[in-house]
């Protein structure tokens, strides 16, 4: 089995030190969300895919370039009776592009590629608009459109900081309401600042990863966050399939 990641930045899925479409080995510096995925998979697979080099990372610019190349001037996703939702195409197009890249991996035909795409539920691309559920479904639809049934949307509501805050600020309790916080970085008390405060230091990729690796932030103990639970369920379904 092979894990394929893509995300928004270093403090979610991670970053790359190369410009390849899929970065592997030392070219990929996994972020906290990649480690979350890895740990959740390890429960079932009994090995760390990251530590064993069984993973790859698509940098955002490369994914975006693929998504843009696939758009056609002559066809576009229109809203209508069958599709009322706004603010979904961003998720759909990114998922499609990622599935296309996944399909080109040799592991796709002779093994299994788990495709995990991270996007903020409410980041720059939607600025507070659109339904989380519709965004999630669009990503699933985007994976399916390209025949990748092993695609898993990782869409925190509103941002990954709330999942981490559940552990470091809430001691894993009453976390559901964190999902109603504003994802706006310019709001009065931005989530990034709240996380920095709770950690007592800047929430860098390295610091977050270290806490996840030594289970000071434990994905298994975060149980009352619907957006994270949806991710866990889907990943389990894909692993069991």
């Amino acid at each position, binding site marked *: 089995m092979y894990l394929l990641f893509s995300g928004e930045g270093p403090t979610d899925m991670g970053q790359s030190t190369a410009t390849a479409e899929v970065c592997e080995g030392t070219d990929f510096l996994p972020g906290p969300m990649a480690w979350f995925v890895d740990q959740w998979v390890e429960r079932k697979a009994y090995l760390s895919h990251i530590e064993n080099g069984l993973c790859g990372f698509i940098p955002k610019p490369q994914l975006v370039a693929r998504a843009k190349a696939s758009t056609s001037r002559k066809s576009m996703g229109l809203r209508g009776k069958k599709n009322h939702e706004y603010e979904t195409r961003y998720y759909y197009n990114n998922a499609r592009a990622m599935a296309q890249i996944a399909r080109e991996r040799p592991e796709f035909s002779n093994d299994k590629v788990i495709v995990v795409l991270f996007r903020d539920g409410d*980041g720059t691309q939607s*600025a507070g608009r659109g339904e989380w559920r519709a965004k999630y479904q669009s990503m699933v639809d985007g994976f399916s459109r390209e025949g990748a049934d092993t695609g898993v949307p990782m869409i925190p509501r509103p941002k990954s900081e709330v999942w981490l805050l559940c552990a470091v600020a809430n001691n894993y309790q009453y976390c559901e309401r964190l999902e109603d916080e504003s994802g706006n970085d310019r709001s009065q008390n931005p989530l990034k600042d709240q996380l920095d405060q709770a950690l007592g230091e800047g929430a860098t990729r390295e610091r977050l990863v270290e806490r996840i690796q030594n289970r000071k932030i434990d994905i298994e103990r975060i149980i009352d966050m619907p957006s994270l639970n949806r991710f866990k369920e889907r990943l389990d379904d894909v692993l069991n399939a």
Partner: protein
Amino acid sequence: MQISHISVSNFKSLMNFQLSLHGFNCLIGLNGAGKSTVLQFMDFLAQQVKGDLDEWLEERSWKAMDINCKLGKSRKRLVTYEVWFKLEGGKRLLWQSMFNPTELKSTSEDVYLVEQDNTSQSLLNVVNGKYALDAQSSQPIPFDYQGSIVSQLKEKDLPVEVKQLKAFLLRFRSLELLTPQFLRAKARNSGGELGLGGQRLSAFIHEMPEEHKKKLETLLIKAYPKLKGVDTRALRSGWKELNIAEEFSNQQLSTEAQHVNDGLLRIMAILAQLMTDHSVMAFDEVENGINPELIEFLIDTLVEAEQQVLVTTHSPMILNFMEDDVAVESVQYLYKTDDGYTRSIPFFSIPSIKEKLTVMGPGEVFIDTDLTRLGDEIAALTQE
């Protein structure tokens, strides 16, 4: 020469309104956001140098009081505006004016020539019933006029750049009300111009120089391969009739404009206008009646036009057939503030919209965005 920026206050919903313009410009926004008002203002500007404001109001069935902004508490009557023109060689012209709707004229007016280093010289100054040209001593205005004084001053007296400005605005054409029944009607003569609604098309094409007619035919055939030619003839009474020749399975069919489809007539009107020496062309809801297969042809033609072009649209297809760089530069989103004033912002400069453009076509971004809620994001931006 090109209009590069306008600011205007107290013209309908335009209050402290700013708009930057390029060669090709596309206004989008919800119904009632002020797109047509902007086109009306542009036409109002052009009328200033023609003078006859009574006629302008009549053509639109407006009264003078309809010009003013009805919002807010202020009951100021003066319409103030500032227009920047880009000239060849990096120089610019600045035209500032205060228009009094009661007198239907600009009671105060300035034109400056602005050099690249931002030094400027006065070319025209009107204030307190006196005027001065080229910073000479001012003299009383010996005549009555409507609009700008430029409409009445003798051509030979005007500084070169003011003459240029006037000629430029005289060649502004707005087709904001293009309607099939007008396009279809026979006309006697066009006076070299189509009406606001496309009136006099048959005569306009009849009067076109032969080479323009040929060029128009070639362009139309690109859009409609079945088309064989466009033909006009003068009837005995002086009316001009427009006919379209098509070929179906080797059979030629000639159809009079009365029975030609709307889209073809509209495309014909737009193309015919682009062949004139107009400086700025404005088309409201440019997509109307035009089938999707022709949208790309239409947009390419408008983007490449020699004239400055201003269109409004509600169509995601129109946007999707723009190249990203064209869309980024030319698409302006018009919206209303909570108190009802029209504002503009380059659509693809809004952060969420810019991010979405990285993985979608411009039209797809437009249709995927809940415009009724976009105001919140813009408000947050403008507060910063």
